[in-house]
């Protein structure tokens, strides 16, 4: 087990209901070597946490059905409470950040962000070296 993990590509669970954002984020993550599973809502994402065993979850705040906060709370209360979670939201939502931090978010990013910033955050959360040029 220990000998196989360093060579295996990392897994990112991307939870984003806006298809064009999901397409762009999935593309840059895959181009960076990640295996990405994309989910448009919280319920399917939570089911996939058990199924795909991701290294990092990239989670939008505003989702249909369960909100990003509810998904985060369920992850923290589930079998993998230490799973790194990166939350995304629009700027000016200070209360969103406070709420996410109270729920135990690993990192919080505000839109708009650059591709390089997103990749650096995912790499850092997965415990990998950050690439110099990831744009």
């Amino acid at each position, binding site marked *: 087990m220990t000998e196989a993990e360093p060579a295996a590509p990392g897994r990112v669970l991307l939870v984003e209901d806006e298809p064009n*954002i999901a397409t762009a984020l999935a593309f840059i993550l895959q181009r960076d070597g990640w295996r990405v599973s994309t989910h448009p809502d919280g319920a399917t994402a939570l089911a996939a946490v058990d199924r795909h065993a991701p290294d990092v979850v990239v989670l939008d705040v505003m989702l249909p059905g369960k909100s990003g906060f509810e998904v985060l709370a369920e992850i923290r209360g589930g079998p993998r409470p230490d799973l790194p979670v990166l939350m995304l939201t629009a700027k000016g939502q200070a209360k969103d950040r406070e709420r996410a931090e109270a729920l135990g978010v690993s990192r919080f990013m505000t*839109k708009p962000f650059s591709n390089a910033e997103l990749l650096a955050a995912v790499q850092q959360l997965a415990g990998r070296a950050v690439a110099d040029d990831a744009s």
Partner: protein
Amino acid sequence: MPASARGSTGGRIRERRLALGVRQAHLAARTGISPSYLNLIEHDRRPIGGALLGRIAEALDTTRASLAADVDESLLDALRAAGAAQGLPADDLAAAAELARRYPGWAAVIAAQSERLAAQADTIEALSDRLSHDPALAEAMHELLSTVSVVRSTASILASTPEIDPNWLRRFHANLDSDSRRLADGAEAVVSYLDRAAEGGDDARLTPPEVAARFLDAHDHAFPALEARGAEAIPDLVAELPGAEARALAAAVLRGDAEDAARLPLSMLQATQEPDALLEAACGDAALVLRRLGVTDPARGLVICDASGALIRRKAVAGFGLPVFGAGCPLWPLYEALSQPGRALTRRLEMPDGAVWVAHAVAAPLPQTRFDAVPTARSTMLLTRAVRDRADALPVGPGCRVCPRTGCAARREPSVLPG
């Protein structure tokens, strides 16, 4: 006699009483007030007017006109407020009546400018609250930023990936096309929204509670038809409102006002405007007295909050700013009363401009609807402009966002005003 006494109603009462050799206790007994209250009136520490002034004039064998100040009391109060806001010493503030008599034109200019400053502070508060609490604007900005984010990511991918698969290339071009349109539409919608708001045409975006509040404000919370016809006047009164929900909210407020009017009719309020003197007629219901005085007297303000502290009724009065959204100043006795339901409070408050107000407040439990329901209370505060004397007044503000008091221990957020 100090300059202030010569021009004030209190000073004239005292002067007339002493000239007749009447003792303070004797005059107080004849006019139905306590000697200490008369003493406060004579030293300009309590406002005087209406029926009480008439009784005092009669007891002193003179006319109301001869006792009334030769300078408009409201002008005097505005001048003292303007002076206090600039830190004038007490001796200079006492000369306000002299200034008003000798230079009435300049006095009016000073008072008008002071009131204009207060009005501008109210406007600033309304605008800042609007920007920070407008859900339509917040949602539009969120949509814009999300779209900017995806355009930026997609454009960055195309710029940094020269050997991109043709299928991906087509897909990203299509996404850029749709997202750039969405961005343009979103930007146009925000600009259009801001234009309409600037032109005052944002009524259509008001929430039902805001529509109902505007309706009450437009009538200054006073409805003669309600006093005359009771609850049957309500359908006609609310018919002008757009939206069934706003009409229902306004009608609920007016039903309460109609019940209040039936329990404490206008005729009783015309006899006296003193809260203490009305308690007996109101069968000891202090909140009823405060509500009735608040809605019938245009010179008084009224604030009601629920058990959470949220303001559910605001009747503003010139000089005492009330927040358009959110809670008021945590130091208002409105909230102090909430922690002691049933105990009526009287507090003297000093606003940042130096004006002094008397606040009567009481919290009362709402009727229990079920035996196992959690009891909840509602707090009511009546605001009455007082004669300026800051000696025992509690420094308060209109709400943190527009309060210039720095270092206030109760502050919950920074002010948008310079300190």
